[in-house]
């Protein structure tokens, strides 16, 4: 018996090596993807309530363009856009929640900056809203431009945001002394500004437009025309899972490219027979577009059918709600905006 032991061991070793090769080949399959499919829902971090981006209604349904990114990922990997577990996070908590593994996608109007991308174990996968920081003031103050700001002005804002840093750069470069009043939660900032604690409220312009709808008298406030910073907002994933990163990136890209080619949630199925191969690739009728992610071939079709293209999402969440009817830079590059994504092929 012991004579065969040696042969047996070598046999085991061979099997082990074989297994190692096969797992190497299958290593493309992402760990996050596997866990997500096992759990049956996508764990997504969103804001604590920013109309247009991520906001829950009275019955707990989340809507917004950030929410739609999460839904797109769920449609792609689980086949159902509703299989998302949303975790509302403050600006301060968001990155820790992602790096610690509490959530797998962070879609929370988060600005893409060098230090965030490089330093803290995060990877930004794209931009779903091009924004810039602005100021809101009371109409009655007569202020119509940031040039009218004077020494001693008090500014309400959130902590843990790029806003805090931009604000300092802005006031310092103009030599204006100011009083920063920084709160942890957006609702508290709005309440304090609305009560008259601050002369101005500063954050991303989309945020100002959205929060204005929450004020006692929205008509009493205006957003000043100046933009003092670039704020490209986009979804974020943990560093170290390249496949998951690609899945989230291309879920977003699919929505934007679908709009470019005129594919909507209504006509997606009929586009399968289109003459344009680019369109056919986007609805899973041509090529093997899902295999590289470990997904089937209709993952992108599901996104378009269940969530819609970027234009539909924008209209539903931001234009029709009266937050920012004008798409501005968030228009396709073919229509004068700067939305431009790499081709899905």
């Amino acid at each position, binding site marked *: 018996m012991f004579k065969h032991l040696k042969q047996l061991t070598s046999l085991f070793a061979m099997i082990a090596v074989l297994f190692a090769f096969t797992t190497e080949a299958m290593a493309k399959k992402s760990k996050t993807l596997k866990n997500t499919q096992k759990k049956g829902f996508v764990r997504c971090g969103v804001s604590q309530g920013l109309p247009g981006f991520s906001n829950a209604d009275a019955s707990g349904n989340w809507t917004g363009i950030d929410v739609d990114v999460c839904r797109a990922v769920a449609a792609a990997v689980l086949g159902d856009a509703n299989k998302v577990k949303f975790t509302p996070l403050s*600006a*301060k908590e968001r*990155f*820790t929640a992602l*790096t610690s593994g509490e959530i797998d996608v962070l879609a929370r109007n988060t600005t893409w900056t060098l*230090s*965030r991308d490089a*330093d*803290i*174990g995060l990877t930004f996968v794209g931009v779903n809203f091009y924004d810039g920081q602005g100021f809101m*003031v*009371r109409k*009655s*103050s*007569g*202020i119509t431009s940031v040039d*009218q*700001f*004077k020494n*001693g*002005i*008090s500014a*309400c804002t959130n*902590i*843990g*945001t790029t806003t*805090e*840093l931009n*604000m*300092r750069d802005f006031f*310092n470069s103009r030599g204006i002394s*100011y*009083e*920063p*009043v*920084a*709160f*942890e*939660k957006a609702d*508290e900032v709005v*309440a*304090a500004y609305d*009560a*008259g*604690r601050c*002369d101005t409220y500063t954050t991303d312009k989309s945020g100002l437009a959205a929060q204005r709808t929450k004020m006692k008298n929205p008509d009493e406030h205006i957003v000043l025309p100046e933009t003092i910073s670039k704020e490209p907002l986009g979804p974020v994933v*943990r*560093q*170290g899972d390249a496949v998951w990163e690609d899945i989230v990136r291309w879920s977003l890209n699919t929505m934007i490219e679908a709009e470019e080619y005129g594919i909507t949630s209504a006509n997606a199925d009929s586009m399968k027979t289109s003459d344009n191969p680019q369109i056919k690739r986007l609805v899973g009728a041509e090529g093997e577009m899902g295999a590289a992610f470990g997904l089937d071939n209709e993952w992108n079709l599901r996104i378009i059918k269940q969530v819609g293209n970027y234009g539909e999402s924008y209209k539903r969440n931001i234009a029709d709600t009266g937050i920012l009817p004008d798409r501005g830079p968030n228009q396709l590059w073919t229509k004068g905006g700067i939305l431009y994504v790499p081709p899905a092929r």
Partner: protein
Amino acid sequence: MNNKIKRILPQLLTVLFVIFVFGFFTINAQVNMDNRGIDFGFGFLSQEASFDMQFTLLDYDGQDSYLWAYVVALLNTLLVSFLGIIFCTILGVIIGVARLSQNFLIKNSAAWYVEFFRNIPLLLQIFFWYYAALRALPLPENAQPWFGVTYMTIKGYYIPSMIWENLNVFMSCLIAAIVAVIFLRVYAKKIQEREGKQLPVLYISLALIAILPLLSFLIGGVTLDFEMPVLKQLAQTSFIFEGGIALPPELIALVLALSLYTSTFVAECVRAGIQGISKGQKEAAASVGLTPNQILKLVIMPQALRIIIPPTTNQYLNLTKNSSLAAAIAYPDLVLVFAGTALMQTGKAIEIVGITMLTYLSISLAIAALMNWYNKRIEIKEK
């Protein structure tokens, strides 16, 4: 032999267990941080903070380092704790004594006060005072002066600031007066022990403390001017006060909420302390001819303090730790600035949370040590 093993083995196992737990967490954190490409280190402390703070005791600018931001934020936390402890002690003693009053109205008002403020969550009280104040207080342009020269507005409480000339002369006089008072007390005690004569220590002390600094104004060349807050227009309907000192409403609301809340617990400690002294003590003191004031000062309080101090120390510690709720209303304390903004900008979660925890631990231990020392001092000294 067997006994020795029995004695040592549990200790050995405990030590191994502690090492194992710490080791597990350290290695776990290391592996996870490696996987996610996060570095561990304290180098960030010397980097430029590049954010501003609303209210600071020392000069701070965004160009200063994170370390300096930490120090400044820590001072803000200490300021709130210090003010809170002072006010909650004063209030607590008054309410605690009032609860033992013979007067039905005083006694019951005090009881209501305690039950009311003790049983509402502190965070709600902080929100209440902050937002209630913001809603109720006037805008700067509508503010009526309090005491003629101070203004309570939605943007803060503005008080005149003092501009001293030859402040050091004034301070030396004040210190000299205090030293003189200490010597006087020692001397008075000696006199009383030797001759049984009581000197009017209180009046002489008050006179000393009033007269010496006053002299510094008359012959020491000390002058004191006040800079008054003056209303300034920023825009059509937007005003602030300039000059003087501005206490932000966040600080006021926080100190108010913390002192009111904690004072209820201090009041209960005080009541327990006084009630803990048996009636016989008071009667015995009265029968040897002490006046009611002397009874309180020489007989009741020294004994009551022994009961009051240890639980009150706990309340001071609670107040200090509760001051971290400041983050909710934008008061730039350690948690808001360091564990909030600095953590966000640097992403050094483990380092910053670690430093913050150690800081609170140190503050609490320092307060506990101080109170323990005081407790030792007033303990019964057995001869």
